[in-house]
């Protein structure tokens, strides 16, 4: 136990804190003061906070409704909704935002061609919409896992005692779901905070800290300003984390009792059912359109202007197969590593030694507050030379991506741990099991699926990551997203869309395989 804690702490210190420190130490104090002098950067701070609030709330609302729907056994079209609820995780965000423009822009297929509307999607409204769609899957994943773990028997008991549906929800379901919802809000907020793909494409003139940092690099190769702006993101992220701990951490939520049956979930009330199906269908149509847009873009001559069908973009995309292969290898490695790390960290940090656990937990969630660009530079600065010369190898990519995804892996597993009665562990300990044995024989079987969620989330997150890979790929192991960016920057949007579609198809195939292996409800388990 002791060893595990120290080992985990050491890894986090080395692969999270050290690169962060290297970046923070990069700009000088005067660089930080420069922010007061730049109205654009001050605006960016305000905008970032506003957008984070707006998008987090809507994404979590959407995610909660989806989670409710997905955890009902008797909802028609559940499979479709499940697919829709994870789809946005799968593609590079700029592809989604481009599709928005294609469909809803000034000459958009839907707004202009079908409805003859002239709407302005560039700016904060479009950004709000695309961030909501991009990040609600994260909320869905986190919330539905918790909802699923609420034993139907408790709700059943409440109903038997005379509670109506509303008060069951209010007094049983909602309080039990609170850690999940809080975890989801924290996670989504951190993702929105660091999001740069969406504002890049759809934000227009709307400055956001994460993109502002990237613009300083891309436009001026000014890393000091970039590091300074990215550092400003760490403060709200730390606040979010503390808030979440106050809100969730105090209470004990025990639902897996180690005894008694879980029971079957009863039929969904009609009103709720109609609402859930209608709501989810609407979102499904919307998300479906966006992805149809990407596929159409890959099959037509000029994205958004010349609709003649062509296979030319696909010919170009297929040539980049090695890049896709690299993506799969890197992301698979990162997925395994993040799942294991998340599991071990959550186990070690689950609150026995309160102070130590809190610090470890904070360390594990910290990467979520680090914009990818920042972490990418941090890894380059930290691991370029001795003592740990990782740059130029594929391992730097795997390590960076797995530690960057550790927050989700950790939060998911930690929320899982929180629901398991400590009596189970104590029983095992009393019978003489070591901490390792407790971990592998008690917790692992109960949380196997949670670990899978962590793996899959990390995998898809890594496959679609651009902000980190862009800095860490070498000439020999270019990954697909970097390849897509190269195409998009070259204005070859059709080929970019084709490669995106290829990547989507492959990650879905990988997911389908794991469904076969783990059962179809891996993602809500």
């Amino acid at each position, binding site marked *: 136990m002791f060893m595990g804690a120290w080992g985990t702490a050491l890894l986090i210190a080395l692969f999270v804190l050290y690169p962060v420190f290297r970046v923070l130490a990069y700009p000088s104090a005067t660089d930080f003061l420069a922010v007061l002098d730049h109205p654009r950067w001050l605006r960016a701070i305000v905008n970032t906070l506003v957008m984070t609030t707006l998008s987090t709330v809507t994404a979590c609302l959407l995610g909660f409704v989806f989670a409710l729907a997905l955890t009902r056994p008797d909802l028609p079209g559940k499979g479709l909704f499940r697919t829709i609820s994870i789809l946005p995780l799968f593609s590079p965000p700029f592809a989604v935002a481009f599709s928005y423009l294609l469909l809803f822009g000034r000459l958009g297929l839907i707004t202009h061609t079908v409805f003859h509307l002239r709407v302005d999607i*560039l700016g904060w409204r479009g950004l709000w919409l695309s961030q909501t769609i991009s990040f609600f899957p994260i909320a869905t994943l986190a919330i539905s896992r918790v909802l699923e773990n609420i034993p139907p028997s408790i709700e059943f008991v409440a109903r038997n005692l005379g509670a109506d549906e509303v008060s069951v929800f209010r007094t049983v379901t909602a309080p039990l779901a609170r850690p999940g919802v809080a975890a989801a809000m924290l996670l989504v907020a951190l993702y929105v905070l660091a999001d740069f793909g969406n504002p*890049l494409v759809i934000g227009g003139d709307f400055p956001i800290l994460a993109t502002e940092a990237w613009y300083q690099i891309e436009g001026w190769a000014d890393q000091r300003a970039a590091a300074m702006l990215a550092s400003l993101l760490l403060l709200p992220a730390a606040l979010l984390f503390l808030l979440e701990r106050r809100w969730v951490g105090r209470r004990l939520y025990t639902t897996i009792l180690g005894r008694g049956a879980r029971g079957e979930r009863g039929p969904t009330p009609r009103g709720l059912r109609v609402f859930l199906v209608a709501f989810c269908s609407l979102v499904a149509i919307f998300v479906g359109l966006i992805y149809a847009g990407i596929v159409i873009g890959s099959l037509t001559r000029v994205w958004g202007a010349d609709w003649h069908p062509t296979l030319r973009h696909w010919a170009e995309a297929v040539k980049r197969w090695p890049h896709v292969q690299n993506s799969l290898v890197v992301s698979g490695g990162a997925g395994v590593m993040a799942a294991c790390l998340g599991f071990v960290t959550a186990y070690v940090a689950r609150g026995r030694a309160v102070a130590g656990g809190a610090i470890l937990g904070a360390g594990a969630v910290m990467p979520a507050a680090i914009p990818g660009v920042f972490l990418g*530079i941090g890894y380059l600065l930290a691991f370029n030379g001795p003592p740990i010369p990782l740059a130029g190898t594929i391992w730097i990519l795997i390590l960076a991506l797995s530690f960057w995804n550790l927050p989700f892996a950790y939060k998911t597993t930690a929320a899982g741990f929180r629901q398991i009665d400590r009596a189970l562990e104590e029983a095992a300990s009393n019978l003489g099991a070591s901490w390792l044995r407790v971990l592998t024989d008690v917790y692992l079987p109960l949380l196997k699926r949670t670990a899978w969620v962590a793996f899959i989330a990390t995998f898809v997150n890594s496959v679609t990551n651009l902000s980190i890979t862009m800095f860490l790929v*070498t*000439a020999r192991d270019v990954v697909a997203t970097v390849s897509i960016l190269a195409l998009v*920057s070259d204005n070859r949007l059709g080929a970019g869309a084709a490669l995106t579609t290829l990547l989507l198809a492959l990650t879905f195939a990988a997911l389908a395989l794991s469904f076969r292996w783990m059962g179809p409800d891996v993602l809500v388990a």
Partner: protein
Amino acid sequence: MRVLWTISIVSVLVICLVLGAGPGTAAPNAIVIYSGMDEYTMNVLTKAFEPMTGMKVESLILAAAGTMASRVRSEASAPRADIFLGGSVEIHEPLARDGLLVPYHAPEEASGKIPSEYIDPRGLWHGFYAGPLVIIVNRRLYEQEIKPRGGPYPQTWDDLLHPAYAGKVAAWNPATVGGGYIFLATQIFRAGSEDKGFEWLKRFDASVRVYGATGPSTIPLVVRGEAVAGVAWLDDSAEAKDNGQPLEYVIPPDTGGEIGGISIVKGGPNTDGAKRFVDFVLLKGAQDAIARFGFKYPVRTDVPIRSDFPALSSLKFVKYDRPFALQNRDRLTKKWDELIGSQRR
């Protein structure tokens, strides 16, 4: 059994560290290029260079020169690249100033075939192509929205000030795009003074629908009809047009331009090879390929330009004071943001 599983986690981590510890060495007779140039031209150059020298070229191609420059900077303690290629010399200059580049004088630079404005006297960067700023136009939207309101088809920068263009032009944000700053400086030099330049920029602001935050952002905006006209680089615009995108471009008089740079990274794995590559891109054949496939103006006077481009001598460039522009970058972008950028809404 279960314990085995945990042990395997640990061993995976250990293996990662062990394998990662080996330095990522390049093949002995290879050079590594960080390229901000388009892939097609890069492939043509590579295919010509490799048999000529027997060296292998490993290039990381990303049309994002600033990002490449940041990588060079971050890797300064143990550089992975030999060559940093592409992007305006404005991006190379800070690397040069911080001593991250190797001075080198290519024989071709002394041949008299390359005008002095493309040659850095210190030899830290080497201009290897030129490209002007252009106005891009979506013809269909122009006919629909500008012509009926009496707006001229844009031939000069001033044409974009016509009220018919109000809110219909895609420009660049000088605070985030290098090209946007070159545009800003161009207008100052064109107007003759800073104050007059900013007056022009303020009037121009009424025409601007969006200040794109990245270099490639304006072309798709115009192609997809989010804007009628826009500011862009010649090479990107000509390439998009050549790819069949519905886009027209005009090189206005008194335009500004970029000098595409190539530089040798100090401490890279194969500096001698890098020097040979610099020699190579300045040769007639390579310059021809860059002009033809990269849609750029060659720096050599004895290389023909693309037949669809006007002769470089027929273009009227504004008198662009590069040292002034480089020195006043921070001040001028801040001033722009105060006077224009932050006033929008």
